[in-house]
Structures are given as structure tokens and as C-alpha cells.
């Protein structure tokens, strides 16, 4: 029997505002990406040409297949630049608003810091810091809940990967202090 009088509502207190101004349009990003891909295609084509993109006595040289793929990538990217300029619809579409970008950065920057911390502190301590910090700072969740969740998650990951499944993970001074 359905029980619809119980309603689940999960509200996000940090949801982005509706009328936030656009940072850039889809057209600008499309053109920028196509240009980057074009540059990449030229660099890869050059590298493959240098490696050898023709035939020798044993058959096609190592750069043969990727060279022609670079040419295709370059051609499609050039077409993409033209298509983006000609499309009026794309020019009007917002790629990201300022509020949205702020939220994306709120995940991306901690993730970047987490990757840096991982190299020095090991994955489990870095995970603890990321989860606790993110829950507290971005999610405005109580300190004790954030710390407890971060500790439990990191501990479960450690037991699962390092102990049960024997998958070696990067470790730091804390694990070394405990003999791992």
C-alpha cells in the first residue's frame, strides 16, 4: 500500500540564486574548447609525424593511425569553431552563472587541496580533512556530525581497502605511527 502522506523533503540551504548573472555563454566556451582541441590536434599530429606517420618495410609506422586521427580531430574542431559562431541559439545559452560557478568552485577547490594533501598526509587523513571540512564549511553541518562522519567514513575505507581487499593506498605519517 502506498504511504504518500509521509513526504521526504531535503532542502539545500546553499542552493544558487535563480537570477545570478551569467559568467559566460555556451558559444564562448564552445569556441574556446574547439580552439584548445585544434591546438592539441596540431601538437599531436606534429608528434606523430615526427614518430613516423608513413610506411616502412614492416607496414604502417607507429604514428600512422594517430596522425590521421589528429587530422580528423583538427578538422572537426575547425568545423566546431565555425558552427559555434553561426549558431544563434548557442550564443544565448548560459554556460554557467556566477552563483553556479561559486558552487562548482566550492567542490573543485577542496578536491584540488585534497589531492595535494593526499601526497603528504596519505589518503585517509586527507579524506578525513576533506569530508569534515566540506560538511562543516559548505554544508554548515554541526562540527560533531562532520567530524564523526569523516572519521567513520575514513575508517571504513581503511578497513575495506587496506585490510579486507588488500589494495595498497598512499599513507602518511599517521599510518606510519601505527605501523602501517
Amino acid at each position, binding site marked *: *500500500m*502506498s*504511504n*504518500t502522506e*509521509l*513526504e*521526504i*523533503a*531535503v*532542502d*539545500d540551504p546553499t*542552493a*544558487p540564486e535563480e537570477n545570478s548573472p551569467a559568467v559566460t555563454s555556451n558559444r564562448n*566556451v564552445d569556441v574556446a*574548447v*574547439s580552439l584548445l*582541441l585544434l591546438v592539441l590536434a596540431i601538437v*599531436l599530429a606534429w*608528434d606523430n609525424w615526427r*614518430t613516423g606517420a608513413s610506411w616502412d618495410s*614492416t*607496414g*604502417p609506422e*607507429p604514428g*600512422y*593511425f*594517430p596522425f590521421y*586521427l*589528429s587530422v*580528423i*580531430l583538427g578538422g*572537426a*574542431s575547425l568545423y*566546431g569553431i565555425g558552427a559555434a559562431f553561426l549558431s544563434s541559439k548557442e550564443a544565448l545559452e548560459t554556460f554557467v552563472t556566477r552563483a*553556479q560557478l561559486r558552487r*562548482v568552485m*566550492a*567542490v*573543485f577547490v*577542496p*578536491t*584540488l587541496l*585534497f589531492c595535494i594533501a*593526499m601526497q603528504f598526509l596519505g*589518503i585517509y587523513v586527507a*579524506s578525513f580533512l576533506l*569530508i569534515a571540512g566540506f*560538511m562543516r564549511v559548505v554544508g554548515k*553541518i554541526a562540527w560533531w556530525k562532520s567530524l564523526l*562522519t569523516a572519521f567513520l*567514513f*575514513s575508517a571504513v*575505507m581503511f578497513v575495506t*581497502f587496506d585490510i579486507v*581487499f*588488500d*589494495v*595498497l*593506498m*598512499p599513507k602518511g605519517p599517521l599510518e606510519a605511527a601505527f605501523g602501517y
Partner: protein
Amino acid sequence: MEALGLLLHGFAVLLTWKTLLLMMVGLVLGVFVGVLPGLGGPNGVAILLPLTFSMDPTSAIVMLSCIYWGALFGGAITSILFNIPGEAWSVATTFDGYPMAQQGKAAEALTAAFTSSFIGSLVAVLLITFLAPWISSFALKFGPPEFFAVYLLTFCSFVGLGREDKHKTVIAMSLGLLLAGVGMDTVSGQLRMTFGSTDLLRGINFLVAVIGLFGISEILLTMEERLALRGHAASISLRTVLAVWKDLPKYWMTLLRSSVIGCWLGITPGGAIAASFMGYNLAKRFSKDPDSFGKGRIEGVFAPETAAHASGTAALLPMLALGIPGSGTAAILLGGLMVWGLNPGPLLFVEHKDFVWGLIASMYLGNVVGLVLVLSTVPIFASILRVPFAAVAPMIVVSCAIGAYAIQNAMFDVWLMLGFGVVGYVFKKIKIPLAPFTLALVLGSRAEDAFRQSMIISGGNMKVFWANGLVGTITTLAILLLFWPLIDRLIASISKPGAPAAKAEA
């Protein structure tokens, strides 16, 4: 009949307590990732793949495929209760599923969704059971030109039949193929596209790319959106289940039609998204009361769910029989097979019978267990959405980093994953499709090997791809599919000379 005997052998391989436990764990994890916003089948499988590295291949693939089934089931929960399609193929389910939930029929809608998922998958698994051995024994006669022609067919059909801008699919595919070639050339041992980096010597592992492209980019995208969820809670009683099942024969035509559409679009790389929409649209078109669709009609749940799941499952058929995945998730599973040293394709059926038939048996069992599991635990899984996203997001990031690092124990891969996360975010926003990109990354080196071998055989003559009826037919079909939009427009303008060409495109 031989297939039945082998299938029974598969069940014998499978029915151990350890494998059954892994199956349950996989299903629970799968429903979990299916329900969580920002995750789904391919992401869940990619992120959880490292868990299976220390297992034997059969246990590992059973667990991974159960994560996949679980994620497929889980997607329906959010679509119906919260009007949030976890995956693009769940969009059509929201059309009638959510209105049903609003009318107090959430339990009926969920039962219909799970049951039709089960039926769709079952039809596809039956197809795999009887067709895969036949296709693989046929494919044993394939040489390098035939294999390259099949790869070409796959690539061309993505370009020709895909809904995205053609040049964007070409960009995604050529970029994927190029990245697959980074590192040491397998034939000559020469380094390519490494630019002096020792980290790039190993090449770009496609799983690292996939974790970034799907996992990290989804987190970025999900954070960007408003996450104020409002939905309906539901619990399912046995009486509701039996009532829905009693009505099933009334919808046999819808179920059959959707199953056929799903299987077809799963084997060809049409995909589950196209299957679900086509299933829904055809159910509406053949209905006596098409206007009632979109207002909470149970058939509107049956049709897309059956088609999507038939398609998702049938995508495993070309992966197993030919080594060519029919979907993004199948591509990730294929990558998993390679990690365990298995070579997907026709020889798999000869060299690793236990593995193949254990996997096929797990598809039957996983679906049955999955159906019972989701029917009995919907409220628990639905309540996962109460967990604040600020807690879920960093946990997913950590899981992604663990996954990326574990593949080759390299920190460089974690950085690469982050880079692919940004690429995935931008690509998704400007609609460069990720499925052909993933497919090309997985198949790149195999396609190149087949091409080079064909060229060596023929002394560089492209005629090798038309050397016999089989390879010629596949290559010609590939070219026809590549130019399909043009051909379609031409056919439309010939059959209706007055009709504008734009109609054909629409």
C-alpha cells in the same frame, strides 16, 4: 540446447555462498549509487571497480554486474518518488511515474517499474544466452579486417545515429582514440605522444579517465544545480505487488514491443536513452487513449523501463561475443575484464567457459534477487536522499580518488582523474558526448591493432575491407550509417517531394 547445459554449469559455478554474498553486496551498493544524486550505473561501476581487484574474475564480474543491475533499479526510485531522473534513460519514466506518485499510487508505479525492468532484462538475458555463443562461434572466423570493420561499424553508428551534433561526436571519438594510443606502441615498442613524461609511458588508463569523466564531473554538475528535493515516501506491500502483477497480461504487447526495441537498440549502439523514449512513444502511439499518457498511466512506466533495461542488458551481448561494448557501462565492464587479464571477444567463450556462463547465470539470478531486494527495501533507499549532499559529495570524491589510485598505484592517475573531471564537466555542458569518448578509449588500441594488421596483410591496400562478402557488407553498412542523416533526408525528400528536408531531420 547446448546453451542450456552450459547455463546450468554457469549456475553451478555461481551457487556458492561467497558469490551469492558478493551478489547481494553488489546489488545493495548498486541501488545505493542509483539512488544517490550525482551517481549512476557507469559511475558506480567505475568507482567501485577497485574493490574487485583482489577477487577472482568470476566473483569480480558478478559483483560488478550486480552493481549495474542495482543501479538500474535504483534510478527508478528517484524518478518516481522525486521526479529526478538519475540517468537520462529514466527521463521517460518520470512522465507517468511521478504523476502516479502524486496521485497516491507510488507503490504501484515502483512495482511496475521494477517488474518491467526485470522483464526487459530477462528478455535480453535470454537473447544473450542463445545468441552470444552463436555470434562468438561465427566471429571465430573473423580476421583483422572483419574485426576492424566491426569496430568501424560501431564508431560510425555512434556518429550517424547519435542525437548530438555530428562534429561533436567525431571530436569525442577521435580524441578518445588518440588518448588510447598514448604510451608505448605495442607493435614497434616506440613511444608515442608522451612528450618525455615518464608517467605517460604507461599510457592513459581508461578507468582513470572514466572515473574523472563520470564521477568527478557529475559531482561538479550536481553541486551546480539546485538540490532541494521534494518527493513522496512509499512502502510496497505484497498486496500491491500482486495486484500489479495480476494486471501484467493486459500489457503484454507493450512489454513485448519495448523488449524488442530495447534489445535491438542495445545490440546496436543506439543506447538505453533512445530505447526508453522510443518505447514510451510507441506505447503512446498504439494506445487507444494516448491523451492519458503523461497523467499517471501505468503503461507509461512499463514501456520506457522495459525498453531501457532490455537495452542496458543487451549491450553486454556484443561485449561478450565480439569484445565491442554496446554502452558506456558495458565499456567499463569490458575494461574490468581486461584488468583481470581476460580478453573479451569470441575466444572468451572457448577459453573461459566458467567465467562467461557464470556471468550469464548471474544475470538471471542478479535480476531475481534484485527485484525482491528493491521491492522490500524501497523506503530505506528512498530515505538515503535525506542525507545532505554536502556529506555525500566529498565521500564520492574520496571514492573516486581511491579508485583512480588503486588501478596502477600512481599519484599521477589521481591528477589525471581530476583533469578528466573538469573535461567531463565542460564536455557535458557543451554537449560533447561522453559515451563515444569512453568507447573509443576502450576500443582504441584494439581498433588500431586490427587496422594495422589488415594493412600489413594487404600491403597497404584499403580494398582489404571489401575483400569478401562479409567484410565488404560490414564496411559498406558502416559507411551507410555514417552518412545516415543525409540518406534519411534524401529518402524523405524522394518519398515526399513537397516535404521540407527539415522534417526528416527532426
